[in-house]
């Protein structure tokens, strides 16, 4: 066990820090959360800056246009960008962390050449068409149909919880291509152009009042067969490649952000006098332990994936289960730190964050699904209800 970073890793960190300090002041002001075209422009501008500096697709393999960085370098990148207050991956999320890695892992040479460079440059944005109104935790029950018609699939159905749908160029879409097969074996993965006729996007308003995602209705949308990644009816396996990326280093920035928020909560509590309440103070102390441990667990997971060849294991489920609950606790504590009317003032950052945090135990696999995964795939308990 050696928690020290190597000389090469520290040099990487130093160069990155220097670059961030140079470029961040030149960024335009952050757009309003409800102005989607402006958000897209802001996020893609940042992605282009990363690309020009050689930091785009850091963890992607080199033959996919990435930098082939080690998991530890990726960890350092996510840690330093968050620490410096750099923009989030934002609208580039699906392209960089879901669809892109899937195409890189499973796509043909032609598909990789078509889709990967624009993601890295920030030229194209992807969204995700996985969940459906009747296929949430049971994703494999999805019913959006794709019927072959010559060189096209004709796709009809509806998708839900699709982030960035209004401004995306492409949608990574899961469709049912064989309704007769067992549910996991009749699914295919398609790249659907979002300007195709027959697509209707209806924004969904979250309980926080913002429009973070949308419903997407598909009415006989024609998607070329050549846009299918992987074999027909092999889309479930292709998708699992994507989801294992989601549970790898995806939360590094968030843990760093949580630790920053916790420091800010302590500072605010000291300022407004609530620090003198030992119950609240101890609660913040406990959160310090939790986020320190989650940071160390992240490092352990990254080390593990480095040893096993860069593919994050299912240990990510243990992390996600714990992290999502603790982050909700953080904003409960924040409400107590704010106290009084401030805890209900939506112009206070933590009040909105408290609302947003309610999604953490639901999105990307609910905590109940994570517990099933941990119990069945790690602990080896029998499947069942």
């Amino acid at each position: 066990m050696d928690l020290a970073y190597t000389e090469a890793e520290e040099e990487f960190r130093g160069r990155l820090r220097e670059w961030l300090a140079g470029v961040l002041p030149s960024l335009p002001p952050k757009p309003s959360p409800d102005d989607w075209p402006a958000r897209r422009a802001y996020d893609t501008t940042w992605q282009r800056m990363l690309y020009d500096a050689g930091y785009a697709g850091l963890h992607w393999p080199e033959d996919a246009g990435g930098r082939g960085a080690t998991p530890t370098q990726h960890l350092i990148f996510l840690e330093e960008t968050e620490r410096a207050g750099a923009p989030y991956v934002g609208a580039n999320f699906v392209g960089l962390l879901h669809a892109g890695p899937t195409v890189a892992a499973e796509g043909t040479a032609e598909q990789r050449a078509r889709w990967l460079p624009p993601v890295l440059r920030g030229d194209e944005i992807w969204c995700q068409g996985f969940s459906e109104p009747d296929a949430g935790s049971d994703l494999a029950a999805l019913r959006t149909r794709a019927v072959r018609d010559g060189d096209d699939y004709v796709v009809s159905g509806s998708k839900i919880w699709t982030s960035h749908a209004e401004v995306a160029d492409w949608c990574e879409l899961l469709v049912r291509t064989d309704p007769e097969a067992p549910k996991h074996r009749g699914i295919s993965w398609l790249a659907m152009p979002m300007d195709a006729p027959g697509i209707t996007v209806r924004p969904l308003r979250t309980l926080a009042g913002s429009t973070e995602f949308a419903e997407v209705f598909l009415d006989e949308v024609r998607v070329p067969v050549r846009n299918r990644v992987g074999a027909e009816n092999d889309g479930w396996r292709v998708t699992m490649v994507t989801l294992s990326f989601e549970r790898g280093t995806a939360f590094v920035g968030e843990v760093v952000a949580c630790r920053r928020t916790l420091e800010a909560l302590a500072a605010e509590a000291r300022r407004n006098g609530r620090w003198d309440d030992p119950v609240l103070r101890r609660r913040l102390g406990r959160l310090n332990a939790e986020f320190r441990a989650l940071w160390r667990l992240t490092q352990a997971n990254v080390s593990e994936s480095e040893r096993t060849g860069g593919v994050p294991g299912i240990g990510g489920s243990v992390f996600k289960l714990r992290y999502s609950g603790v982050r909700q606790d953080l904003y409960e504590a924040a409400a107590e730190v704010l106290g009084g009317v401030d805890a209900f003032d939506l112009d206070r950052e933590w009040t909105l964050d408290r609302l947003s945090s309610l999604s953490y135990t639901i999105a990307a696999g609910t905590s109940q699904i994570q517990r099933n995964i941990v119990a069945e795939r790690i602990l080896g308990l029998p499947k069942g209800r």
Partner: protein
Amino acid sequence: MDFQLSDDQRALRSGMRDLLGAVFDRDRMRAAVERGGALDRSLWRELGAAGFFALRLPEEAGGVGLGLPEAVLLFEEAGRALLPGPLVATHLAAGLVKGAAEGEAVVTAAEGGGRPVADLGGADAVLVGGGAGVVEGERLEVLTGEVLEAFVAGAVPVRSMDPLTPLHRVEGRWEGAGASEAYPGALRREGALLSAAEQLGSATRTTEMAVQHAGSREQFGSLIGSFQAVKHLCADMLARTEPARSAVYAAAVTGDPVEIAAAKLLADEAAVRNARDCLQIHGGMGFTWEADVHLHLKRAWLRAARWLTAAEAEELLAADLGPVRPLYSGSAALG
């Protein structure tokens, strides 16, 4: 950065597991329970011969010359096996008390502040803090001979909840000004960390016991581990153990007081709550003397009340937040 156990560390851990399997298997553990926890001197010497106490002494002083990360792995195995005796205090006393390193002497610790003193009966020496205002690593008092006899004479045995750990109540001048000031810092920190490692081993073991039971017990015509109400308890046990493991290992590598506090807090919680969930999953059997789970729970409760309690750890971790760190600068807290 490489946050993985080295091959040597893995070998050390499995060597310790093999040793305990040979000298302290379940039959011997249950026999110790029936003996009322009286210390087995020959077992103590075997641990000494294996380097359990001398692990961190330099080689030129007759030790093994390894560090806290390796010690943590050994104590994890000890916690897993419910190994009794003042393991932490004797390990800390190696090099300070003659015979401790070799397993010839049994050394316990009196933390003060009204805390229980364990295994006083057969102890050859007792570590106590040297009064108020102790600076880190200085003025540790070691009680032996007549002073020890006086100390023992003034101590009152209590009927210990943990059948493997005899306890005394210590009153009079030894109670001192409170644990956080009465015990030298470095030793107290290391005691907290090694104790956290024992808790980690216990938490890992009770998770295994719960999974094993849930995967073999049938009710309603199914293995109970196939029911989400049961399997989710097991998943939560792992979700407590693994962050605690990362915290304990990291604290062993850095030796940082705040990381040690985090490790102790989370490992205490993992050990106690996992033992309780394990007990629940065992149903009626879990409430019996015959099942081992109560031994894990009682020991976990006891360890949680020693070296660094949840309240102390949380205050220390709170003090670490933000620019003002009053507990950090003084001699209180862990130091």
